[in-house]
């Protein structure tokens, strides 16, 4: 976490106070509508990526090639699906905000499909969709928790040194 430094004994500057006030206002006021919009958008987008990535991986596994090339190709297909969806979502949800979590989803969900195949299981398409959805939901929850911890730890660090 970023190590925020403030000179010991220095009180928050007027501009810092003003900005904190604005943040609170935007959260409590008109910002709350946008917050719900982005939460819903992030969730729907991650689920879309998870489902698309697992279905792509599932389709590659259906070719019944050797395991290693199938896994590599399924990962590639999942990544391609993720990049296309991220580029489409980025003007609304933000480029980094959509690209980074969805990349992890697109890495993890095909791996789950590969793991099923490695264990001798042949997941159906609907099962693949469920796996993709679950991985995406897991990522969504992680982003929310980690996001809150980032905000609070930065605030705590600032409070500690002021």
């Amino acid at each position, binding site marked *: *976490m*970023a*190590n*925020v*430094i*403030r*000179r010991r004994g*220095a*009180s*928050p*500057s*007027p*501009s*810092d106070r*003003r*900005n904190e006030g*604005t*943040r609170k206002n*935007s959260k409590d006021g008109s*910002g709350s509508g*946008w917050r719900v919009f*982005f939460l819903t958008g992030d969730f729907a987008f991650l689920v879309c990526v998870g489902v698309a990535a697992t279905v792509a991986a599932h389709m590659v596994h259906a070719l019944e090639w050797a395991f290693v090339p199938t896994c590599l190709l399924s990962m590639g297909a999942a990544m391609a699906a993720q990049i296309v969806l991220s*580029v489409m979502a*980025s*003007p*609304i*949800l*933000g*480029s*980094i*905000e959509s*690209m*980074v*979590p969805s*990349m*992890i989803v697109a*890495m993890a969900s095909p791996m789950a499909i590969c793991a099923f195949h490695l264990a001798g299981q042949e997941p159906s398409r609907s099962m693949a969709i469920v796996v993709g959805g679950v991985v995406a939901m897991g990522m969504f929850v992680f*982003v929310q928790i*980690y*996001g809150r911890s*980032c*905000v609070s730890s*930065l605030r705590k660090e*600032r409070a500690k040194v002021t």
Partner: protein
Amino acid sequence: MTTVWDLRARFYDVCEGSDLRRGPSKKALLRDMRGRILFVGVGTGLDILHFPPGRTIVGIDISEAMLLKARHRASAYPGRMVLLRADAQKLKFPDASFDTVATSCTMCSVPDPARAFDEFYRVLRPGGRLLMFEHVRSHNRLLGLALDMMTLWTRWGGTEMNRDTLSSVRTAGFRITSCTSVFLDIILSIRATKGLGAQGEIQASAPAPIGTPTPQP
């Protein structure tokens, strides 16, 4: 590098039009721009919409194609704004000529960020402010790995997603006064100041310059 950004100028507004989400945080940060302002990496001028009115701003970018797009936004800015083609690593401004240096998603794209920060330090007056809206590498292993992987291909487009910009800011001699999360620990709103004493360290006995608004010209 210039060619890459000239090409990217064509699609920049579509791909980076994520102001819907980042706009309020940018606005809150850039509101602190005071005095003579240098905005580094003005791009197509998307950020001009978040500039507080009535300021005197010099906006620079390495790409002429970007500046061409930025000009109509700059002409609509309610204040004084000059756009120049310049390299952040070799600024042609005299020492201590600005009160504020601001960047927005710029330091991921400067080939040698250390040199650029040295230049920012040089052109800022003592006690001047550095305001940065930047994305950096996450401290989380999983997210950090994703950013490292993304950098494998974004590097070809002139952008590195895994830079430790906060360390570069400190190394250049700036004092970070506040750092706010915009998205996880990846997109940050950073406020730093150039110290009054040697090596950028603010002397304990000096009057508190942090956050003290500079009188408007």
